[in-house]
């Protein structure tokens, strides 16, 4: 594959992806429907465009693409010229499904032009990603419990689904095995819930976290037909009830860090590049020593230099960070208060110097400076108002 998703942030440190004046563009997706997240109102109005000052990290609003259908997850294609949005709704054109939208991006100003919107083939899509080939969009439908593959046409539009798979298996218990003492972290263990889907950097395998089944499903993808077939082994299991939500690959493609929502753990897996087998090697809490109570993790990310892992904790309302040691083993480094409630997502900008936390329930994005040597985060003092922010991505 010409471009893996991990290599693009690295290439940006060499100067790509910046506009002529040195600024960087970012898009923020939101819950924008009266049926917003967790039964509450979404206060966003669609997808917001910001210009980031690479020296200070400050975000300046530059536009809004109005979209009242909860564009809660966004992803770019490898060329950075098209963006895809998961519209996290339960109805689309009368069917019990969400939808996905394709946009072309004007790289000079970040302007979004809608191309088309199709059914996501399941209710409540919470995640999507573009296969490294650039030929397929992979979609995880949380409430529908399905994974779907959509061909991407040469102009960036989405075609009809080339495959839809319903997650199969035994739903895990309501109470997580690994949560801290005093936890009431109960969610999603009623039916299968596909929460994330992404190809490995080689593009040969497609991995999908199912929070309800407590499994990471492993598929092989046929790039000619756009179809998924179960790998052997077909999945890796997490402890019952722990709720795998998201994962992140190390740039070397060999290490995968899986984040469990109900258990507040990170699990290091080895990915065998030939067999697709995942082998667990380390489990570490995403919460500080002594923590008791309830927390739901949300996002995990490896720093562009491959030295640190960052995790967001909803209810503890923190970003915790870990150093990556020999063989990928994680060690706790520190925690920082997000300065806002329920950080659903965070991201590191292309320079690698700033981290942005999308604080869903306090309606703001907060900016932290990254110490590239130690991994530490320091709050910049910057709050950027956005109603019910759910994701931030940079136009790389």
């Amino acid at each position, binding site marked *: 594959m010409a471009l893996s998703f991990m290599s693009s942030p690295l290439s940006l440190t060499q100067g790509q992806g910046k506009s002529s004046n040195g600024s960087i563009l970012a898009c923020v997706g939101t819950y924008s429907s009266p049926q917003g997240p*967790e*039964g*509450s*109102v979404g*206060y966003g109005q669609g997808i917001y465009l910001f210009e980031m000052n690479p020296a200070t990290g400050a975000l300046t609003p530059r536009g809004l693409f109005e979209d009242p259908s909860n564009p809660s997850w966004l992803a770019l294609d490898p060329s950075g010229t098209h963006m895809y949005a998961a519209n996290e709704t339960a109805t689309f054109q009368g069917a019990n499904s969400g939808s996905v939208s394709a946009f072309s991006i004007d790289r000079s100003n970040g302007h979004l032009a809608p191309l088309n919107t199709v059914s996501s083939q399941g209710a409540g899509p919470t995640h999507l990603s573009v296969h490294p080939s650039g030929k397929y969009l992979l979609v995880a439908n949380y409430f529908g419990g399905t994974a779907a593959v959509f061909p991407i046409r040469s102009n960036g539009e989405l075609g009809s689904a080339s495959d839809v798979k319903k997650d199969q298996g035994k739903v895990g218990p309501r109470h997580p095995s690994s949560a801290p*003492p*005093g*936890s*009431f*972290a*109960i*969610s*999603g263990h009623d039916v299968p819930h596909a929460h994330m889907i992404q190809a490995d950097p080689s593009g040969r395998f497609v991995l999908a976290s199912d929070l309800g089944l407590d499994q990471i499903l492993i598929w092989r993808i046929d790039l000619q037909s756009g179809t998924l077939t179960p790998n052997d082994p077909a999945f890796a299991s997490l402890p019952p009830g722990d709720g795998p939500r998201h994962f992140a690959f190390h740039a070397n493609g060999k290490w995968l860090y899986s984040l469990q*929502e109900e258990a507040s753990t990170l699990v290091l897996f080895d990915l065998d590049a030939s067999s697709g087998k995942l082998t667990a090697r380390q489990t570490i809490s995403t919460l500080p*020593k*002594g*923590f*008791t*109570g*309830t*927390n*739901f993790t949300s996002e995990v990310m490896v720093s562009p230099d491959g030295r640190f892992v960052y995790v967001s904790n*909803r*209810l*503890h*309302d923190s970003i915790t960070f870990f150093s990556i040691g020999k063989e990928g083993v994680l060690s706790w480094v520190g925690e920082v*208060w997000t*300065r*806002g*409630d*329920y950080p659903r997502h965070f991201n590191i900008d292309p320079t690698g110097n700033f981290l942005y936390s999308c*604080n869903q*329930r*306090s*309606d*703001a994005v907060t900016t932290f400076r990254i110490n590239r040597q130690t991994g530490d985060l320091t709050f910049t*003092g*910057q*709050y*950027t*108002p*956005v*109603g019910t922010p759910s994701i931030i991505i940079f136009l790389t």
Partner: protein
Amino acid sequence: MPWNDSSHPRDAFSRFSRRGFLKGAAALAVTSPSLARTQRRANSTNRPILAYVGAYAGMQGPVGSKASEQGIYLFHMNPATGVLSQRGHFANDSETAWLEIASSGTHMYAANIIANFQGTNSGSVSAFSIDRESGHLELLNTVSSQGASPAHVSVHPSGKYLLVANFGGGSVAVLPIRSNGELGSATDVKQDQGKVGPIHPTSAPPGNFAIFGHDDGAHPHMIQADPTGRFVLVNDLALDKIFIWKFDIQKGTLTANDPPSVSLPPGDGPRHSVFQADGRRLYSLQEQGSTLVWFDFDPTSGSLTAKQTVSTLPKGFTGTSFTSGVVASSDGRFVYVSNRLHDSVAIFSIGKGGMLSWIDEVWTRGDYPRAINIDPTGNFLCSCNQRSDAITTFHINRETGHLTFTGHYASMGAPAAMVFLA
């Protein structure tokens, strides 16, 4: 509807409270060895401080997530370290929005934030006697709060009346306290009157969606007497007013003062307030506005005069936050405010004359701090993090007012109100 005191309290006891009492007794029995140890070292300086925490569960995380605990928990606080240890559970069928201990330290009152007490559209309040040695609670009686969803109760300085604010019902009630601590039938009930303020607060930070309670009628959130006991103040969140009532201690009745109220900026939502300077100052906390307003209080006329408004959020904050609790240090030098969604405690110094100055903020280490309180030694502040199901404890620097996290999380489902047994 009139409340029949002679029959209903016993019904209440037999119908649900006795079961709770037995559960509570059983839970406490389990801990008797530690209680015995407590008694043995009764004179030692390490004798634990008793605290009660009420549970009030609401939305928490993803769809359907909710802490399922109810009732009142007993904790022991180590006065040297601030560490809280759970020592008992008094179960009941209600959510507890507020707890208050009478100044005698022998009785406690709970606001049960329900709207269906004995088939009526009302909440209830419960009276307990306290075993000061073991912390054991014995339910005395439970009566109607005379309005839906009571959010706050306080004891009049005379010790003769319990004052109740019914958030959902828009009313306040005065309930006599009998000599044994039981509650009698209401001597007065007043419906808050006025125009509901706008949905959007006047004073909230940029980018806020602090929208709550300004839609469907009055919402008294707190009721308390001034230290003289002559006046009763009611913070009505929806009407954006603090009502000022004259209190008749003989009859237990409220009559409108002149002036009868003071207004906060439209939509700002006065929630709680705290008296200082022997009752000559009042600091009012606005839930939607995220402001603290310093009023001078005239204990002769009962008039409130606004002197200063400060934000409870740091410089540069944008977005949504809802304030919750306001407490003052016993020396009157500092005021602490909790911010839900910013999930912080903001610290202010009180200068000469009453002027507030921002000192610092501290992260609560948990979500949605519904209540904060300072222990009787004055050395620790506890934050009840309602949605993350833990109480976090902070060390107070008595000189500077600063808070430092002790590292201690005490687990409990949906902690919402906390009182210490002084």
